[in-house]
């Protein structure tokens, strides 16, 4: 009502207004939180601000960073992919098993990526063509991909990968704590970031997440988009699997069990709404790094590494629940169920 009383033609908001929105937004908050944690840790935890700490931090979070990129788009599109860690494991096992069979490492890795694409395509097919909810589908493929990984190698582990390749993934840019593989992430992040935030496809991702039917009415090929998002997720998970194998020098069926939950947790901490339609990549990257920084700070502070589970869980709940509770504490009466007809003010 108040809005309707404005009688001028609505214009684009001023740069100032947009800047204010950006600075008060969720992304800025999570980036700020990350910086605060880094700052506090640098002063209070010995050895935190060394390049070695950062080096290991980056190496540790690298797989989560890789998978979080497609996961961000998928969750914004109101889908979810819980099969990522299983695909990582399957990819790792394939690299190991094929290498053991005498394949070259490159060919084995390529095969793993192809299987990643196929696995993603299976998810995409079941979601878009058969019309199943992605939560159910990817719980199924979570079991399936992991089952294949464990089935192929059993409890064995393949080791003995060429040291050159292993050195490559753990190499760092001279004089810094930044691993060379981070370049791969930067390129990938730029790619996903541009697609999500500055292309027609990105607009469709948000539109599909908020209301897939209206997106279809607006000429959006929602199913096609969804399908390719799952393929991208499969490929990135497989890529993370190749990395994992070389970084730890071991291909095992149970590699990265449960990592899907870390990825989802990081994406949500990074400000993406589980309902879809909201969130941005910078926040997600800050979210992953935030959890990584906390983990390594705690480790350096000699806190049992197990505490990190509690911290991750609490952080997840706090960042997701927090804003709503704060809003309520402020007494702002939020309209119940704004996403539904119940809350429609006529």
């Amino acid at each position, binding site marked *: 009502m*108040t809005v309707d009383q404005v009688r001028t033609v609505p214009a684009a*908001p001023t740069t100032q207004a947009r800047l204010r929105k950006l600075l008060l937004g969720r992304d800025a908050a999570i980036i700020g939180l990350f910086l605060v944690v880094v700052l506090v840790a640098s002063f209070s935890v010995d050895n935190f601000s060394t390049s070695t700490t950062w080096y290991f931090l980056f190496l540790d979070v690298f797989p989560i960073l890789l998978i979080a990129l497609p996961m961000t788009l998928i969750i914004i599109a109101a889908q979810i992919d819980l099969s990522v860690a299983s695909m990582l494991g399957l990819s790792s096992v394939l690299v190991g098993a094929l290498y053991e069979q005498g394949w070259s490492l490159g060919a084995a890795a390529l095969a793993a990526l192809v299987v990643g694409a196929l696995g993603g395509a299976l998810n995409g097919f079941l979601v878009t063509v058969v019309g199943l909810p992605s939560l159910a589908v990817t719980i199924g493929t979570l079991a399936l991909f992991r089952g294949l990984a464990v089935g192929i190698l059993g409890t064995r582990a393949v080791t003995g990968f060429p040291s050159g390749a292993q050195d490559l993934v753990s190499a760092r840019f001279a004089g810094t704590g930044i691993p060379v593989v981070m370049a791969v992430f930067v390129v990938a992040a730029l790619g996903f970031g541009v697609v999500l935030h500055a292309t*027609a496809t990105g607009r469709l991702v948000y*539109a599909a997440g908020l209301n897939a039917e*209206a997106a279809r009415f607006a000429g959006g090929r929602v199913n096609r988009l969804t399908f390719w998002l799952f393929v991208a997720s499969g490929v990135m998970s497989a890529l993370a699997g190749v990395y994992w194998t070389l970084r730890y020098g071991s291909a095992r069926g149970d590699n990265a069990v449960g990592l899907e939950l870390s990825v989802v947790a990081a994406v949500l901490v990074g400000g993406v709404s589980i309902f879809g339609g909201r969130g941005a990549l910078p926040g997600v990257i800050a979210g992953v790094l935030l959890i990584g920084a906390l983990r390594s700070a705690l480790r350096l502070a000699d806190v049992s590494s197990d505490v990190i589970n509690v911290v991750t869980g609490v952080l997840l709940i706090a960042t997701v629940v927090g804003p709503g509770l704060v809003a309520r504490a402020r007494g702002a*009466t939020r309209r119940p169920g704004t996403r539904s007809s119940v809350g429609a*003010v*006529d």
Partner: protein
Amino acid sequence: MNRFTDLKGEAVPESHPTLVVHGLVKHFGPVIALARAELEVRPGEIHALVGENGAGKSTLVKLLAGVYQPTAGEMILDRQPFEPRTPADARDAGIAVIYQEPTLFPDLSVAENVFMGRLLTGRGGLVSRRAMRDRTRELLATLGVEIDPDRPALGLSIADQQLVEIVKAVSLDAKLLVMDEPTAALSGVEVDRLFAVARQLRDRGAAVVFISHRFDEIFALCDRITVMRDGEHVSTQDTAATDVGTIVKQMVGRSVDTMFPHTDRTPGDVVLEVEGLTRAGTFDGIDLHVRAGEILGIAGLVGSGRSEVVRAVFGIDPYDSGSVRIDGRVLHAGDPEAAMRRGLALVPEDRRKQGLHTDLSVARNIALTLRRRLSRGGILTSSAEYGVAHEWAAILQVKARDLDTVAGTLSGGNQQKVVLAKWLSTRPRVLIIDEPTRGIDVGTKAEVHRLLDRLADEGVAVVMISSELPEVLGMSDRVLVMHEGRVTAVLDRADADAETVMAAATGSSGVVA
């Protein structure tokens, strides 16, 4: 009925009013949804509540229903202060509400739907399916409806869903029945049935509040009318003592030309041509064409397959056989994006679910259909979006604080303008528009009508589906009527009158030549 006096407070000797609403206010953060509502409903009365969209009617309903709690003011039910905290409180106090949109549980049986929240129990306090089934069957029978009480609500037509809602409300035996645009999805027979029920309840002494945008219904059914505007009470009067013009003037605060604009024009070539379009169980052998500079109206009851046909034409739904041609060239099925490239636009029936992204900004909504055309080298910038959104918001006079305003917070009329902007910005050659004025205020309605007429003048081929007969008759150059998935009549403007169209829409024999 007219023995009662007005709101001014003179004594009412016969009985006390069932409901009195006094100075009711509701704020949602900064938004004032209800500024000062007054309402008095007496037992044995059907009371119309009218107002433009955004007048606060639905907010008032939700306050009565206990969905929201008022910011200030009071409600008095049967001389007792009435402060429902939850819908259950309101129900227990004797209020039944039929909402605009059915609120059924698709997985549950019809009988369980009717009794949900107060399921009938039998031995050992366990739920008795048989008792509910029998009672539901009785209630359905009194309405003259045949619905299996044991079937799940999933798959019921909208009209049937609304009938189940009515059964639910009747079963409550409420002292106050509130119906918020219950007829929006009903037509003909079902409306009559609903009115019969409302009168029955009235005669039993219940108070009925009836909200509608259809004046014929209001004047046929209601004893008194309360008009609201901008969240405030404007007037309450006896139906017998007023007329449509007066009410409309009070609703908009100015007089409105209720005539439909229609310019005489000579249509050009056929642009859209549909032949033998068939989808099993939905529509069958549909032929239609529309020329440049022509408005083709499509009439028919809800469920006649009108919307389904245009959805299939546009590519949202598949079809089994038949063809769609634009400028003589075949348009392939199931691809809205291709349809858009060929100059087709579809303004869908359900604004909030299909037409609009209620959580996106005005700018993002308007630019969504243009997202590819606005991209340069694959990159889409916000400023390109703001540019086109600003242009169209100006043309259609969208009222919003700025282009970042979230579309869902606008009034119904402004939302419809955003949807229109979204589609007109694609500069379509064929504009299909499904229920162009459903649920929007009288003022915006007239604007939309003028706009459609102007578009046809400019050579756009317009296909307009509408449930409002006057709109179809007033706007169309030709009228196509559908009944149960088939075309039952195609009439020229001169031959199209209400009786002929209704006869064809209800499938009455002997009328269709």
